[in-house]
């Protein structure tokens, strides 16, 4: 199925035209884009997610950095046009290596090129997929009573049941989870648990938690990829089942939750595609450390800074998060979800999760 890219080309050409016009008008060339920092994300009442606010950053040719950014944007735009023309796509990493041939415009790290691809999304209001760019990381794994129909690479549709047709590692989420590639044929589950670590995912699979509790288990693989977040959102919307996020108990894990529930700062321009506002944080919470008397590690200097940072992050301004973060700073401790093994391998599925889920009103006694 060939997508229509003409609107993408129009938007990309508009950037070049803008810069060219600046030269003609003897203006110092510039582009404007929303400031992509914590201080400039605002809650969007209509969309129910966090989006960029009104602060604008001007990138202009007055400074070396700004000039490089403009030059690279030109090269990237040209490269995207070329890919559309020859009907190819590239990974972000490939693009980074392709920039080797861009002379002065070459990137010095992949982080630079990734950021610019995001900038270009923000400027044009297109998505990365529109630019024929894809991440090299694959999405995470899923196990549960869900049947998916995926268009395979030889253009055939294939039905996959996420318990019966997969091994212990589950169904692997592809990088493209849009309807033209992936549809949900049937979903029979009461809720979905998104799990940070592979170890805990495997524990729940081995203990048969998906069948015993009629749950869909999603492995996040740390900070979840765009496709994983999009997958969770679609599953949540199409099956209307609650989403619970189960992570370690440290500041970095809270950010994982925030990117699923509220939208990530880096991708706030597409929060409405990626975020699942009804998501709830299951644990492990700092209160759990006290209540379940879990084994802990001391907070590092970086942990403490990250927690303090979260206290000023607009997304964590509700009483639950403020209370928990302050409690954790007071304790000076953190813990991992697998620390629950202290009470035995079945403790998490037999005791911890049922207790927490009941408390949250997901399952009834």
């Amino acid at each position: 199925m060939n997508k229509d890219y003409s609107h993408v080309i129009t938007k990309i050409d508009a950037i070049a035209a803008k810069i060219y016009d600046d030269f003609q008008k003897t203006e110092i060339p510039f582009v404007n884009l929303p400031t992509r920092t914590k201080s400039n994300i605002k809650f969007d009442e209509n969309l129910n997610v966090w989006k960029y606010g009104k602060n604008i950053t001007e990138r202009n040719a007055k400074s070396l950095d700004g000039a490089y950014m403009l030059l690279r944007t030109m090269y990237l735009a040209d490269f995207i046009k070329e890919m559309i023309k020859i009907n190819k796509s590239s990974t972000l990493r490939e693009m980074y290596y392709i920039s080797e041939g861009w002379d002065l415009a070459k990137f010095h790290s992949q982080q630079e090129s990734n950021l610019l691809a995001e900038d270009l999304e923000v400027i044009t209001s297109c998505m990365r997929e529109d630019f024929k760019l894809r991440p090299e990381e694959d999405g995470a794994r899923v196990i549960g009573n869900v049947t998916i129909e995926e268009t395979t690479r030889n253009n055939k549709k294939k039905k996959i049941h996420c318990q019966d047709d997969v091994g212990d590692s589950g169904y692997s989420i592809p990088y493209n989870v849009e309807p033209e590639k992936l549809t949900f044929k049937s979903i029979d589950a009461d809720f979905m648990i998104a799990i940070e670590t592979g170890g805990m995912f495997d524990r729940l699979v081995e203990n048969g938690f998906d069948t015993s509790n009629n749950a869909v288990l999603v492995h996040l693989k740390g900070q979840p990829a765009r496709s994983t977040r999009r997958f969770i959102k679609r599953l949540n919307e199409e099956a209307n089942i609650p989403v619970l996020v189960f992570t370690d108990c440290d500041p970095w894990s809270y950010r994982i939750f925030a990117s699923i529930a509220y939208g990530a700062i880096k991708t706030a321009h597409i929060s409405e595609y990626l975020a699942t506002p009804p998501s709830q944080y299951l644990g492990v919470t700092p209160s759990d450390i006290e209540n379940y008397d879990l084994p802990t590690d001391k907070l590092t200097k970086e942990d403490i800074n990250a927690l303090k940072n979260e206290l000023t992050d607009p997304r964590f301004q509700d009483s639950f998060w403020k209370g928990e973060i302050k409690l954790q700073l007071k304790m000076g401790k953190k813990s991992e979800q697998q620390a629950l093994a202290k009470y035995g391998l079945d403790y998490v599925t037999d005791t911890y999760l049922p207790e927490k889920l009941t408390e949250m009103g997901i399952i009834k006694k």
Partner: protein
Amino acid sequence: MNNFIITISITIAGCIVLQLMEVIILGKITAHDLAKKQKEISVAEFFERNKHILGFGNQTRALITSVKEGVDNGLDTCEEASILPDIYVEIKNHEDGECKVIVEDNGPGIVKKQIPHIFGRLLYGSRFHAIRQSRGQQGIGISAVVLYGQLTTGKHAKIISKVDEDRPAAVIDLVIDTNKNRAEVINRDTVHWDKPCGTRVEISIMADYKRGKRFVYDYLQSTSIVNPHAQITYKETDGTEHIFERTSETLPKKSIEIKPHPYGVELGTLIKIAKHTKSRKLSSFLKTEFSSMGDRTTKSAIEKANLDKNLNPKEMDREQFLALHKAFKKVKIMSPSTDCLSPIGETLIKRSLKHETQEISPEFIITASRPASVYSGNPFQVEVGLVYGGNLPKEETVKILRFANRVPLLYQQGGCVTTQAISSIDWRRYGLNQPSGKGVPSGPAIFLTHVSSTLIPFTSESKEAIADVTEIENEIKLAFRECARKVQYHIHKVLKRAKTREKFDLITKILPEIAKKSANMLNKPVPSLNPIITKIMDVVWIEDLIEYEKIKREPVQTTLVGDSRKEDRGGTITKSRIMVVNYKQTPQKLNLYAIIPEDAVVGSISPKPSKVTNNYIRWNLESIPPANKIDINFELAGLEKGDFDENDLYIENINPTYVIGADKWEGD
């Protein structure tokens, strides 16, 4: 020198006391008994007992002191004869810790008759009485080595000297008769020597070669740094040869002998001078025998001393001299003339340091020199240098190279006023480590200090540390502060340059690329950039470049007398190119100053400058239109490659914030 005399008398008295005690133990004595025991102690005998004071305390020190005395002598004698020194040092290692030290110079040589006196008598020499800057001061140097050699090995010294190209060299083997302080010539001969003239000394001494050889190397390297006009060759026992090359073809300015200054003269010296004066009246005595004594100061000194100006100085008594001596201190007397000093000069210090630190490839070398000053009537002058960065160790204590009258000081660093002055500066703000802001800092740096004076106040006769004299300490501090300021300025400039370089890249490379790419994507012609460039830059841009051009060297003159700078035409032409571009949107005018080294000779300058002085060149640049540039070129001669490696530019008559690449001119 006074110190020394005092030391002797105390020691002699000490010997007498010892003898007395000896006698007391034996029983009752009479003055006649005593008289039998009392005898003159020869200076040589004195040395025999006190060799540690003169730097022969142990066998390592003995080796270095021997080399040092030989080399100092060689350098002094060459300079006196206005010959560029070529010094050859060789050490031959014998068994049982015996070394043969050989030092050879290309000086004028020594007439046969004088050889026994110079090498076979202690306290004999021409420089002992002169007040001017020289390496040796005591006249004890080389003969002490001869004496040490004969005491420890029993061997005699061999001296070869040639004074005339057409005649053979004289060879004399001698020992010192320690009772008489006279040379005893063992053998006289003549020999054919290829050199036109020069002196070669061979002395066998007991020495610790294994431990000492490193110090000998350090000493010679250091010597080469402060004597850029000398070529020094060092051959080790195993035949390895090190050559410390000559980096300057110009002899140091000859130091001039001056008369003693009243502030620095001791009472005894005053009496001694009076005894030998030809003046018959006190007033003319003061005016002719002392420096800085004019009519008025002479009159007021005599009045303060309550003396008659017509007194015959030869008939004055001790009380009268004492009154006069006291009166000197009460009268304001002009500082002595500083002609007698021969500092190395900033350019040469920088060049030497550059040459010797090539392997380290330092980030920068900065020097500072103070005007001459005076302590207790003795003129002195301080010069310092600082080497920073490169492969220098970052964690270690800064290396301090100390010099006095072009002689390296190797020992007793802790007791030297130089170290004291460095320690009292807070180096932390200049990027060096220094716990609590005191003490010798650590970091990737080498410090150099050179004190030149008619009388260096050493802490001891082995001449290893300069005494704690407030005036000298202050001057060293001031010099290092100046150096440190220059370091800061340099760092600031390097940073600024890097920044402006970025901006230049931006307009010359990146901006045209952006324009080209956007035009290509839209299939349109590339737009013009000039108006945007002036908008982005909005400055007057000054950039410079220094190049060196080797020109054919004219035959080197080895004897250069007096002000020799203008005769040094060979070598390198330093070419400085300065580009002034007006990137403002309106025409700009300004005055530009380029600082030049004082010892450089200015060659062609374009465009025509409005003023040229010893220190700078000034151009008045009239109205430069936007996006236009002016090229400025000037040439400097009399410098080696790298002596002038950075333009120092200043601007005037324009808002300094409009300009990148030069700072505001603060006046002459």
